[in-house]
């Protein structure tokens, strides 16, 4: 049970880090999109 809990915790950490990275990427893409849109306008 302890091992499974450790595994779960590790998995959770990994997924959380991935989540954070995705959020950052999304914000960057949004910024670039807005910049390009203003440039087009």
């Amino acid at each position, binding site marked *: *049970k*302890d091992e*499974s*809990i450790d595994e*779960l*915790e590790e*998995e*959770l950490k*990994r*997924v*959380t880090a*991935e*989540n954070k*990275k*995705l*959020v950052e*990427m*999304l914000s*960057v*893409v*949004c910024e*670039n*999109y807005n*910049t*390009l*849109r203003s*440039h*087009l306008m």
Partner: protein
Amino acid sequence: MDYSSSWINTSLDLNINSHRVHQQLPKNVVENNFFSLEMKKSSPKEESSGALVEELKRVSAENKKLTGMLTEMCENYNTLRNNLMEYMRKNPDKESSPSKKRKSDEISSSNNNLMGGGEGGGVNGNNSESSSSDEDQSCKKPMELETCIKAKVSRVYYKQESSDSSLIVKDGYQWRKYGQKVTRDNPSPRAYFKCSFAPSCTVKKKVQRSVEDPSVVVATYEGEHNHPHPSQMESTSSGTNNRCRNPISSAVPSSAPSTVTIDWTKSKCSNESSSKKMMINNPKMEVPQILVEQMATSLTKDLNFRAALAAAISGKMLHQS
């Protein structure tokens, strides 16, 4: 493991009848009590693992949602970029500055890097292939646009003494030198000038002595002036600015890579001095001389006359060659 089905009622019945007090507890009750104690010890761990599982499910769902949003944003971005490129292709004159264009290219390349590099960790990496092909297309399109802009190039040949190494070509415009470079194909250096009306006027000039004929200086003009020629503005000048050597025909920029004009006039200083000498020595010739000079200045200012003269001279040269 689901322990809910095996949940046993551990509540102790304290409503003891007097006759029950002295009875022994049955074995199954004892066993159940022992089992319930053990369950209480392990339930915090189970609760924590359950919580972890739930949290994991939640974060995974969030991850999936973010990935979907990111792919959608990238698609929208690519669509917008394609629209922008099409618009710029259709309206090259209304194009933005090259710096902004480069910025959009950098943005697109950074977006493509994000998509390609950040998706190796476990998220679907299917977008990397499409993004790389888009990047290639996007890299090609700005280059095509730049060649369209740079197509307005003209070359003018000037006669200059070999002893004069200044690379200053007097064409009526005012220039500012911003660089000099020695090229591999030509031992004489190349000087770079930009119009004094910069940054509003984006014309640039490169001046270099010709390899074939050192007495000829080649001036390459890029762009078009958005202001009138200074000689046209100065109509009452006595020729101080006309000291400059105007080419016989103005270099007409075209979509072709280059047009060639030749200026066979000598330095005006010598001409002026000689003309002045003429006037001093022969006062009787003063009036017609003035008229002749006025005619000459007015004709040189006339662009059509210059073009016709250039065509005639080039035609003669072709016959001679």
